[in-house]
């Protein structure tokens, strides 16, 4: 899929009508993610009901790739367990960086529309930022960055 159709077919739909866009009252977990390269930022808030993501919302200033990635992410992880979400986070990141064989086994489903960003090296971080931020929120890291020295993807659980 070329870049133009990536935009036309999927990204723009979620950019125009982002799902789960807004703020949650008193969420159990939240984090803000920054992409210092472009100044974009994204807030993610969620409620964990036991181990399950009960509610999730996002808000922020970002490009269409980032916004669509966040929008689709929230629809996919809603109702999933923390462990399932972490699996998706890892798989999504690997896919965006070209390290995942999209033809092989994975759990990404329609999120594979983002596989094309691996050919846009300057935009990979835009697609990953929401997932980065979700990981931080799940692990009670309240602020993260795509340029963080310690990749929050591997931050210790519960380490604030």
């Amino acid at each position, binding site marked *: 899929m070329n870049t133009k159709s990536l935009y036309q077919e999927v990204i723009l739909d979620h950019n125009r009508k982002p799902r789960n866009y807004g703020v949650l009252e008193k969420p159990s977990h939240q984090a803000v993610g920054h992409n210092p390269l*472009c100044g974009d930022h994204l807030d993610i808030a969620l409620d964990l009901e036991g181990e399950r993501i009960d509610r999730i919302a996002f808000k922020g200033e970002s490009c269409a790739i980032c916004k669509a990635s966040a929008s689709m992410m929230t629809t996919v992880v809603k109702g999933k367990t923390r462990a399932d979400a972490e699996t998706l986070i890892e798989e999504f990141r690997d896919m965006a960086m070209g390290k995942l064989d999209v033809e092989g086994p994975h759990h990404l489903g329609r999120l594979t529309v983002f596989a094309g960003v691996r050919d846009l090296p300057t935009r990979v971080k835009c697609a990953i930022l929401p997932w980065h931020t979700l990981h931080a929120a799940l692990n009670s890291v309240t602020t993260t960055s795509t340029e963080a020295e310690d990749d929050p993807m591997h931050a210790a659980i519960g380490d604030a």
Partner: protein
Amino acid sequence: MKLIEPALEPQFTSMLDVERIRADFPILGLQVEGKPLVYLDNAASSQMPRQVMDRLVRYQTTQHANVNRGVHYLSETATAEYEQSRRKVQHFINAREDREVIFTSGTTDSINLVMHGYGRKFIGPGDEIILTTLEHHSNIVPWQMLAEEKGAKIRVVPINDAGELHIDEYERLFNERTKFVGVMHVSNALGTINPIKHMIAVAHQRGVPVLVDGAQAAPHLTVDMQDLDCDFYAFSAHKLCGPTGIGVLYGKAEFLERMQPYKGGGDMILSVTFEKTVYNSIPHKFEAGTPPIAAAIGLGAAIDYLSGIGMSAIASYEHRLLEYATEQIRDIPGLRIIGTAAQKTAVLSFEVEGVHPHDIGTLLNQEGVAVRTGHHCAQPVMLRLKVPATTRASFAFYNTMAEVDAFITSLRAVLEIFR
């Protein structure tokens, strides 16, 4: 109403043979995404003509050795060529003497040299440094580092909504503690040409030296050190059709002589013992270690190339490109030009309602059009004008009116996707 210098000489409208010029730039023939490249990121870095490449090859093929060292043929030749380049720079910017031209690694390095060599020696606790809202991060961060180290204070000249400096406010910022002024000649983010001659005169009336960041001016305007009377002027070769890794710091000899060296090492000394080291005279005092010799010679060749076309001719042609592009882009619905100063170089920064610049940049690239998106290393300007980021098309003398059309057509097509 303050005096604004005429940046261009409209009476001087010698025509450029753009097609012939383009033939000198091999890279302009490139296809990107199957489309002819339309390179509109010249404010970030310009392209290199074959004449400069050939000069680099000739140097490496027949003239290379280390400078200021050997008594053999190649070392003497390399030294002579390196110093010849210094004189080319001197004449290009109309400096009084060639020893007022210091080769650095670029504009950032030049500004850091002044911060270390002048600032750390002559700026102390409670002293004030005047900068402007328009500055590139490279003319902000070094002074912040100095202010933090010395307990000095930074005062900032505000801008209006068009992206022009408030000159009255600038004059009001001076007091008995003001020790230094740093101002860019031309804004990289907006294209604003600042009235630096007037600003320098204002500072000099109060005995305050001025550093001008000329990175965006030297490639597009005639710059004259003696006419401007600035104390320091910094620019880079790679925005001037030259190589990366080389730039210039012009400094008045009287200042350079009073300054402390920034880097220590070979070439910058007269004699070294463990008891005492005597520094070399200027400019060598500031050129420690083996310099980027080939790059310096390449810069000389780039200056020859640009001088052959003529800076006045370049300025007036680029102004026509800007006027045409501005006219074309204005009609696009939802688009707002960021930076509408009366005096501008050929830079078009803009935002489009509801569309992020990075998406515009990625999709324009699909059409072969190269633009810059983001904050342009000038976050204070973005903050002041309340835009998180812009898309910036920046033109050079080798761009054509047809490329402006291709850019506008592509931009309209890209924005159509978002409607």
